[in-house]
């Protein structure tokens, strides 16, 4: 393939990411919509992280029981945000995940568990997401999202960006990452007959950029509100978490 051709395909890919008319899923993969093999694959992939999450919560609370209250806050915040279906410019609604705040405060482990609890709740009571697709949804929302949020936050803090800005960017990118991973999961399970995984990815990510950017910005802004309040009223816990 000539370089010019390659460039054109890349350009087409980016343009279609922006122009496709609608997002094809709302946050979580629905019950029964991943082939069984993929369900098992994602459960297996997520399992060690869940174990790691449970252990890390135990360790954290044993080390400093005072943090229990902030962990409760992070969990409850996840509940609130994932109940908010926010309208988007694509004419459909989607909800943020809310795991970014906890990831910034506690790191990845505890949020794997928190995210999983919310996913189980929504799968059982709201027919949103599903039990067969739980492994895949945990991987995108409760693992990749927090990993990205936390990593971006840590790096930006290292280069001396302010606490608020580092948190905002971390949470924003983590939220986008969750969406993108969901699209990748669907594309891998349902590659296009002719174009393969890439063409499917374009189809499944739909207008993901345009839909998710404003939503993720909102999530980032709301999370910084909580962080600002914590900075004021909960300095002791933030220092324990080495966030301040």
């Amino acid at each position, binding site marked *: 393939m000539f370089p010019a051709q390659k460039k054109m395909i890349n350009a087409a890919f980016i343009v279609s990411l922006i122009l496709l008319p609608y*997002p094809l899923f709302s946050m979580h993969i629905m019950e029964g919509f991943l082939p069984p093999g993929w369900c098992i694959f994602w459960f297996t992939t997520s399992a060690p992280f869940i174990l790691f999450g449970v252990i890390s919560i135990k360790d954290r609370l044993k080390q400093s029981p005072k943090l229990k209250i902030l962990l409760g806050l992070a969990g*409850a*915040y996840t*509940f609130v945000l994932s109940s908010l279906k926010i309208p988007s410019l694509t*004419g459909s609604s*989607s909800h943020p995940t809310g795991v970014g705040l906890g990831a910034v405060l506690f790191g990845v482990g505890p949020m794997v568990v928190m995210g999983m609890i919310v996913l189980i709740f929504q799968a059982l009571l709201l*027919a949103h997401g599903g039990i067969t697709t739980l492994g895949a949804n945990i991987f995108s929302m409760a693992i990749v999202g927090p990993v990205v949020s936390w990593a971006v936050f840590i790096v930006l803090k290292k280069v001396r960006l302010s606490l608020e800005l580092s948190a905002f960017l971390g949470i924003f990118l983590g939220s986008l990452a969750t969406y993108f991973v969901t699209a990748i999961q669907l594309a891998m399970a349902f590659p296009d007959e002719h174009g393969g995984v890439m063409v499917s990815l374009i189809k499944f990510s739909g207008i993901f950029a345009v839909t998710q950017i404003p939503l993720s910005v909102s999530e980032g*802004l709301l999370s910084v509100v909580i962080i600002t309040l914590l900075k004021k009223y909960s300095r002791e816990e933030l220092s324990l978490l080495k966030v301040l």
Partner: protein
Amino acid sequence: MKSRKTTILIVSLLAGAFVISAFPLVVLKQSDFSGADSKAEQAILETDKTFKRWAEPLWTPPGPETETLLFTLQGAVGAGVVCYILGYLHGRSKKERGENDPD
């Protein structure tokens, strides 16, 4: 002074989130902003015509009203806990400050 700065920051962050979320409602007059689950179903069936949904949710809310109730409940319980904890922290820090320097 510092407390005033914090208030301004919080109010502008909330205003920002509100404007971003409300913008589509103002711009797109025709849309009902429904969820996109059924579109995903379509896309999957288009890509793989032999695929059949192989599991159904164990329980589905009987209608949109009940679903709204449960979503609201989820948000309300969460918001209750978040605000309780923030209130607790606020009260605690006030007390600590009061003990250190009476002002």
